[in-house]
């Protein structure tokens, strides 16, 4: 029996894919397992609410900012304060910087080697170095764009990774005029890079038609925050669900009452929970979050260039939602352009330099929910404290978790299309990797876990016998 191991590289964290064959030799089921546990929800218990933003930021090194901001929002709710509006603008600015840097990382560093060098390219070249050899300018552009997003984070928070700047009640450092000008000076180049990448994607899109058709193209719900006027939102607003026809299933949902409409199912074979839309039940209530969902959910982006691109994106599916997970990549690039435009708007606002950036208060509520859009999707932090501010209970629903059912569906679809016989071929593996990577999952975040373990693919026969297993490079 062949024992072949293949890591799915260029994603954050640990995972395992198992493919189960039926009597007829066809793929019956495929599962995407997250094989680690970390326990953040448990060990936050007993700490103070004021530590929570910096503590939960340690869940991840890629999106610490997302946890930092979401946690700070949950803590604002515990203090029952409305933070100064300059503080909200600054938090928005940092989140946009985070979206730019994370999306740039996903597209340029992690995914573009697949897209541009091809699915059958030698794995040793399918990385950012191979990309640099293939197209030096593009690789450098990607590095610069990511650096721009990180610089916003650094300027605001004092460091690129794990800044402890967002605090319960606001932020602890205003933005200086000089810093604002530094960000503004680099904006035109970032926008140029983002537009170039978007054009490149649109030009090359036709050559990825087969992947776009089979990398998780299926009807599902989509969930994201939208602004009160229905436009794209990443920090405030309310929750909206749309279906595959872009029909609004639920709108105006209070993010703080997420438990009324989101259930979390548990399967014995994965440490990652399976959130679902409660009214539709489990697993029919599968929904997707993240860039694709945000673009499907919103009525418009709200900025000029992104809205033009959104028009072209919508044209892929007529009036319906774009249901191909492959186009997470497309959505990500549009979001970078839109985020940069929104950064421009925020920098031009006179209030952005205000020195009043923090509301002080004690514990006024014993339960608080923070919700915002992380690059990978909607993030929920839910805390319970005692009268003095000591954390009693924590629930986190992390973006990658929402996409768990959809990622499972995606690996099944890819296996059904590309698996021939009982052998795990290179082409299948590359596409399984690529299919998962389209979601830009952060497995470390999703189970609040850390570490290095390759993603393996295991193939089982109808009686559960192991047919093949691969971990590349092992």
């Amino acid at each position, binding site marked *: 029996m062949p024992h072949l191991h293949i890591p799915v590289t260029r994603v954050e964290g640990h995972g395992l894919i198992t493919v189960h064959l039926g009597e007829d030799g066809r793929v019956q089921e495929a599962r995407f397992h997250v094989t680690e546990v970390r326990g953040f929800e448990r060990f936050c218990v007993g700490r*103070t609410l*004021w*530590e929570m*933003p*910096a*503590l939960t*930021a340690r869940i991840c090194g890629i999106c610490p900012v997302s946890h930092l901001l979401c946690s700070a929002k949950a803590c604002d709710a515990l203090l029952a304060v409305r933070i100064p509006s300059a503080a909200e603008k600054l938090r928005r600015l940092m989140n946009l910087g985070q979206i730019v840097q994370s999306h740039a990382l996903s597209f340029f560093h992690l995914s573009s080697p697949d897209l541009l060098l091809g699915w059958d390219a030698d794995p040793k070249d399918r990385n950012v170095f191979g990309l640099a050899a293939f197209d030096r300018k593009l690789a450098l552009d990607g590095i610069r764009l990511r650096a721009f997003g990180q610089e916003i984070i650094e300027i605001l928070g004092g460091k690129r990774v794990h800044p*402890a700047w967002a605090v319960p009640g606001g932020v*602890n450092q205003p933005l200086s005029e000089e810093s604002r000008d530094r960000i503004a000076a680099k904006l035109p180049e970032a926008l140029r890079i983002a537009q170039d990448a978007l054009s490149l994607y649109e030009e090359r899109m036709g050559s990825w038609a087969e992947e776009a058709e089979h990398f998780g193209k299926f009807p599902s719900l989509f969930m994201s925050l939208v602004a009160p006027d229905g436009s794209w939102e990443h920090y405030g607003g309310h929750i909206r669900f749309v279906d595959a026809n872009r029909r609004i299933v639920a709108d105006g949902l209070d993010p703080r009452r997420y438990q009324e409409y989101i259930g979390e199912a548990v399967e014995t074979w994965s440490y990652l929970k399976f959130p679902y839309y409660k009214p539709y039940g489990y697993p029919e209530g599968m929904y997707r979050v993240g860039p694709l969902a945000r673009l499907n959910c919103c009525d418009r982006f709200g900025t000029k260039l992104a809205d033009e691109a959104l028009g072209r994106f919508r044209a892929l599916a007529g009036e319906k939602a774009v249901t191909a997970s492959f186009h997470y990549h497309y959505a990500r690039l549009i979001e970078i352009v839109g985020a940069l435009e929104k950064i421009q708007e925020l920098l031009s606002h006179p209030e952005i330099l205000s020195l009043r950036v923090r509301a002080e208060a004690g514990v006024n509520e014993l339960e608080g929910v923070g919700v915002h859009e992380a690059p990978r999707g909607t993030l929920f932090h839910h805390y319970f404290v005692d009268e*003095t501010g000591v954390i009693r209970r924590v629930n986190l629903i992390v973006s990658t978790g929402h996409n768990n059912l959809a990622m499972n569906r995606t690996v099944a679809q890819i296996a059904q299309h590309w698996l021939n016989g009982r052998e795990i071929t290179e082409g299948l593996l590359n596409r399984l990797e690529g299919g998962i990577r389209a979601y830009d999952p952060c497995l470390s975040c999703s189970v609040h876990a850390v570490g290095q373990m390759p993603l393996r693919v295991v193939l089982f026969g109808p009686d559960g016998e192991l047919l093949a297993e691969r971990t590349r490079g092992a």
Partner: protein
Amino acid sequence: MITLTIDGVRVQAEEGETVLEVAKKAGVRIPTLCYLEGLSPRGACRLCLVEVRNWGGRLVPSCATPVQEGMDVVANSPRLKELRRTILEMLFAERNHICAFCVSNGHCELQDLAMELGMDHVRLPYRWPLLPLDLSHAKYGLDHNRCVLCGRCVEACSEVEGAMTLGFSGRGVFTLVEADLGDPWGKSPTCTGCGKCVQGCPTGALFEKGKATSEQVKRPQILAEVTERRPRA
């Protein structure tokens, strides 16, 4: 006047001065943690241990040892460095000193000492005790996880403020700093809420409520300053 030698240099000192005070005047650095100017020396942490060569190499806490004629003191040596580092590792292993999200991160004497003594890792198994926080006080919080039992808060409370609210309960590693008879700090009828204990605390164990990660900057020197300024009879 008393004459002694510190690290091979002859120095003069007044009767009653401690080895630490004289070393400081002579420009010799001896790491300290529980010692704080303005408070009585306790000799609790043992980080300021020095070796007295002509006392048969005896180790004494420099903060609590008065100078004596002819003493030959070694303040810095590989042996002392190793001892101090081990003491520091014991402090880290005893409770949960996790800097990353601590209010005192970047402004912590324990953290500074770890850097000064090159403590890049801890060779002892951590105890990971499950200790509570007391946030019952209106202005201040007490986190036993980050306490090194140096006693500076207890002395600040008794010697400088005169409230005598804080004290120790329990023994050994189970010792806790507590208010009055172990009631929640916020219920203490003796606490004046002056905050001298917080200012004197070298770590994030005592902090001002509302301070988030890295925001707690302390002024331990204030204890010596208020004592100095106080009118004398």
